[in-house]
């Protein structure tokens, strides 16, 4: 460089920084998601993404589509308020796109299925039907007997 001024290097630095700054602003504008909500500070399209998550459970009404009779029958029984899927598994494990993909069998038919709710535990409301294994009415119960041997799963009243 012939006869540089004492400022030459600073001019160049300034130009370099300026160019980098402009480039940064351009990249930032391009990289900001188009649906960005600048007041509440989130990506607006995220709500659409969240809403598109597939449902796994259908709720009791969805069982009616194929099991009208069964649903009507249970609606008159003790366990009518319970979620069908709570014992029979999620709808998405049973049906996909309207076609059955697997049985909706109960997870287990052992005692635990019933005792999970009905075993006597401190913490449960006093008026909730709960039992120990030494319930009077079961004086003659065999070892390892399953509740379902004598009780209807949808209406367990003895």
């Amino acid at each position, binding site marked *: 460089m012939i006869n540089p001024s*004492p400022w030459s290097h600073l001019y160049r630095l300034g130009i370099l920084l300026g160019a980098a700054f402009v480039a*940064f602003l351009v990249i930032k504008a391009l*990289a900001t998601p188009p649906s960005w909500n600048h007041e509440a*500070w989130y990506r607006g399209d995220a709500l659409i993404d969240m809403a598109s998550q597939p449902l796994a459970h259908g709720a009791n009404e969805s069982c009616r589509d194929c099991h009208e009779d069964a649903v009507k029958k249970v609606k008159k029984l003790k366990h009518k308020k319970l979620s069908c899927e709570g014992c029979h598994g999620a709808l998405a494990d049973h049906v996909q796109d309207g076609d059955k993909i697997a049985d909706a069998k109960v997870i287990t038919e052992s005692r635990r299925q019933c005792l999970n709710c009905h075993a006597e535990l401190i913490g449960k409301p006093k008026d909730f039907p709960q039992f120990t294994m030494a319930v009077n009415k079961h004086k003659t119960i065999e070892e390892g007997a399953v509740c379902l041997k004598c009780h209807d799963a949808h209406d367990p009243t003895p």
Partner: protein
Amino acid sequence: MAPPHEALVNYVFPNDVHVWWSLMIVIYPYITGLIAGAFVVSALYHVLNLKQFKPIANFALVTAFCFGLFAGMPLLFHLGQPQRAFEIYITPHTTSAMSVFGYVYGGYMIVLTIELWLIYRKHFVRKANETTGLERLIWSALCLGVNTYHPDSEKLDHRLARILAGIGIPWACLLHGYVGFIFGSVKAISWWATALQPIIFLSSAIVSGIAVLLVMYTVVKWTSRAPYDYTMLKSLAAILWAAFIVDWALEILELVHVWYQDSHEWEVIRPLLQGPLYVSYVWGQVGIVSVAATLVLGVAVLGKGNGKGMLYLVNVGSVLLLIQVLLMRFNVVVGGQLISKSGRGFVDFHWEFLGREGLLAALVLFSMPFITYYVISRFIPIFDQPAGQAK
């Protein structure tokens, strides 16, 4: 019947079992603290004109730069999605203290790089004219193509470097202080939530920065068989000693305050300090390590020694302080997460050796700034002004 207040079991919320911020988040503030501390030492000469620190002013700046290059690495190692780290520049959420990291760190590195460039530009110009081929190209690029050194530009550069150093002090303080605020503002974690947090972080940062410079200076001079500047060392050790006493006082103050108030924070902090943090906090951070460091440095600074003996004492004290500050970072970051938000239990911290947040990764990462310093020192005369020691 006893008052029914006490918890009888170690109950931890189901989601509380993991310590999410692990070793990487321990060494991250450690590294930014070293940057802030080293920069402050450099500013002792560049801004405050304390002549006795002129010999290490540029050395401190280069050290700050070397640590600065790797300040972001622990964060990248920690993130679940490191490839999205750039989002901190695109959509920073300014209600979050963490959002300022991108701009404060990036801007600070630019300030630091420019200041270093102004200081060592004379050397770059000389090398650009002395070399040929590819090497010449690189040195010319570093000169931004201005390969002649105008005599008036020296004063200009010096003035500009001084301005940048002045801007750099508060900027370095923000670069490290915001980390303290990140912790101090989390009301959900009693061990973190105190207004003193940013101040304690900053004061211990300055301590660690001065300490690392003292040790590095000794090692560099020792390996290059160059003479030690004992007067400067004693002066710097005095500042280190004073800075640590202030830092230690702040740490004790925070402890005494939360103990005395005896509020819901102390209910979980007391068992934390008596239990998981007993060794690292009570004995380590505020206990033996601090006492030993204060004594050793006190003898070095107040004593009459001005030679090798003082040098050894100063180095021992500095190493102790580097340990103390690292313990402090560990105790704050990990300790806070050991308290379950149930208020009734404590979580275990599991050390990892391999893995993203493991000990090995932390050791390798922490050694990188020192290796970088060594590489830079092969190309640039860090301790000498490019053309003599004028002024």
